[in-house]
């Protein structure tokens, strides 16, 4: 158990529920399989957010059960069979509401971390 913790020390732990939003956000640009989603999140976060498989796959299956994504077996560009996840219309709506909520949280935290005067200077 111990080595695992050390490995992820340099990464930021994701807030509860944030992973769902990130996955939905990633799928916005088109259907993707699990491996690509994790790579994409890592790439876009500048290698800071590392999604554990033990969180990714349960999240994908949970989102599918909620009806926010659907899945389909397709060929990848390198001609491999993989399970692709696609955003559904309700998923899109969910993403919008999560984005709004996220913006609220970011503003709120920013308000605390960076008091107003500094903000005007910047």
């Amino acid at each position, binding site marked *: 158990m111990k080595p695992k913790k050390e490995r992820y020390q340099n990464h930021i732990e994701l807030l509860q529920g944030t992973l769902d939003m990130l996955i939905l956000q990633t799928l916005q640009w088109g259907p993707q399989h699990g491996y690509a989603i994790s790579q994409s999140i890592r790439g876009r976060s500048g290698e800071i957010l590392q999604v554990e498989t033990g969180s990714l796959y349960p999240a994908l*299956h949970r989102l599918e059960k909620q009806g926010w994504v659907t899945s389909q077996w397709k060929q990848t560009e390198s001609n491999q069979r993989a399970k692709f996840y696609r955003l559904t219309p309700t998923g899109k709506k969910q993403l919008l509401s999560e984005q709004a909520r996220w913006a609220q949280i970011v503003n709120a935290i920013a308000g605390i971390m960076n008091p107003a005067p500094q903000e005007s200077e910047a």
Partner: protein
Amino acid sequence: MSFRNWSFRRRRREEELDEEVQAHLRMAAQEHAEQGESPEQARASAVRDFGNITLVKEVTRDMWGFRWLETLLQDLRYGVRMLRKNPGFTAVAVVTLALGIGATTAMFSVLSAVLLRPLPYQDPGQLVHIYETDPGGGFSQTPVSYPNFLDWRAQNHVFESMAAYDGATFTLMGPKEPIHVEGLVASADLFSVLGVKPMLGRGFLPEEDQPGHHVVVLSHDLWKRRFNSDPSVLGQSVRLDRMSFTIVGVMPAGFQFPIRASPVEVWVAQGINATVPGRADNYFGVIARLRSTATLGKARAEMATIAARLAKQYPDSNKGLGVGLVPEHEQLVGEVRPSMLIVFGAVVFVLLIATANVANLLLARATNRGREIAVRAALGAGQRRIVCQLLTESVLLAAWGGALGMLLALAATRLLARLGPRDIPRLSQIGLDGHVLAFSFVVILVTGLIFGLAPALRTAKADLIQSLKAGGVASRDGARGYSLRAALIVSEVALTLLLLAGAGLMVNSLIRLTSVDPGFNPSGVVTFAVDLPDAEYTAEQRANRFAELLERIKLSPGVRSAAADSSLPLSRSGTIYVGFQIGGQTTSDWKMAATSIVSPDFFRTLDIPLLKGRDFTMRDGPSAPPVVIVSRSLARQYFPGQDAVGKRIRMGLNTGNAPPQIIGVVGDVRRDSLTDQPPAAVYLPGGQIHLGSMRFVVRSTAPLQACVDTMRAAVRLVDKNLPLYDIKTLDEYLGLAVAPWRFNTIVLGLFALLAVVLSAVGLYGVVSYAVGQQTHEFGVRMALGATRGDVIRGVLRQGLTLALIGIGVGLAGALPLTRFLSSQLYGVKPADPLTFIAVSAVSAGIALVASYLPARRATKVDPMVALRYE
């Protein structure tokens, strides 16, 4: 969705998940390869990056829902496999649990039927039994007189309805052979108080309470047996004791009132009495239905006011009389409740011992399974998952034990219903009904969880690395494991000692009770009853008829002596107490004496010693001077230092006549029960006072059946329509008087025996296990020169230490707990030192044997083998 369909889709999903993971790994490996790693390296990196594949799959599957059901089925399958793999362990555990759960279930079914089940009437919680109290006369509960009942009914505002009833026996005549039937004379309201309507016809009408109305309601059973379930019996007439009655109703099947061993078969309206009974004739039971707005407390207060008013209004009969109210259910079961609860407490102890035993077995096995569990944990099973798996196994074990236990309970309840003492109400109705099954289900679940939890937690927490390192060898049990097991054994021994102490005290009481001298010699005496009803015979006719019967019986072959009696001692027919005054002065206080009417030769037939004076003779007839015989205790108490013979006492029965003279003094006889001291007794001569029902007592040299046949023939010679009933030997009556004691003793004894066996097996198991764990140590010690004796002593010390601590704890617990037994004991104190010493010695002896067997095995260890081990 069908199960098949569902399971097919599950499998499909599993395959997909697997494929998804494999695709992930392939793509990751490819990327690693593109970065220049060799194919093997790339695959290894991909797997390493991915993490614990099994765990990822498992948490992903959790998202599908229905996961718990899936897991449960899987665990059950696995559990069955594990239990099958260890048939010896499984058999011991299942049998142990079956005994514990079976015994508990059987006892709960008794508790449920006797104590918990509501009375079979409408809104039974509103039913109240009302009685009179006579604190001055020393009677806490006496029957009620009819006029008092009428006043209570008219003056109260707390009861919806109220009814009076009085037991009676009848001879049912008819085209078929005359039979004796149990009856109840009841006021019109009885059925409406109970809220039960007849199945056919009607109940009684208010006017049928008035003298001269002869109507009867039949029990379903009698209607079926005697009238072939013919609905046209309504309106027909039937002869009871040669009086004609109109059948007006038939009660539904299963209806019983009052609830007692010999059920009532005919309910007769109050109008059977030629006159309304007087205010001093208190022999009625009263039952009433509380208004929904009234409480028992309010009813008690109002009834007390009414009783006080009546005492003032009718001082002759009611002076000093109070009134008491008790819920009808309480009236029925209050007396048997303590012993039922004691027996149930005992069986719970047995269940606890069984549970502790199985927990011990599981703990021992858990140590051996450490490696299996460690492997599963390494393969990605979460700790919760492992605990669930182990708990599933233990509950499965409990379920098997429970299933077998149910069969035992079924057999036990059948046996109890047939052989249990008849004076435990509703015992014959016990069985495994819904309540009992629900109770057993809970017991199974709870015991399974209790005995499984400690081992499961310990196993799941075991150090993974250590277990794996230990290789194939079972890991050594830590000190904590041993102390847990030792604690279990100590509590088992302590509980066993408690049960043994209880059983020991009961056995002690029973021995004392059976050696109590009842004051008469019951062996070889047959008794039966014959009724000559008031309505058909004048007093003189009846006296003649009884005399004639007695003559015939005396002349029968094999009869050494025969007599008649109004109420037999210890027959539970109820002793009649009558007031008397010393010296015949009307001014002195009334004393109470157990009074019976006996024929000449009664004392000789029962071997009651005639201490002074003479017996009654046939000359002590209606025209002769009134005479009585008194018991030794009466003579001693009221005529101390004088000769009672020749003195006079005035009896409450015949206040008008001259006070009778005492002509003899006889030995004391125990009447109500073997445990009560013999009461002061007065015997009146059968030639001067008569009752409608007499019991014959016959001392005969003939075998029982032959004797009964001769008696029937003798009675038939006098009157062929006269049925004999209640044919029993006096020994049987004595047996019945001891029956509840014997029953409790046997049940407690069985439980104690079970406890001894279970805890001995438990101790044996723990010591054996400890010996197994110390094989190496024994080997070393014997190699270093320890003798067999040293090793045996060492092991024995270990076993006996546990047992002695257990005995100590048990004794400390027994002293306060046996006090609850005191109502069930006779002639023994709850803290009887002899019993306590004896049961402690027995416990220690059994512990010695249970530890000696494994100790002997320890000495058979070959030092070389032991040293090479590990």
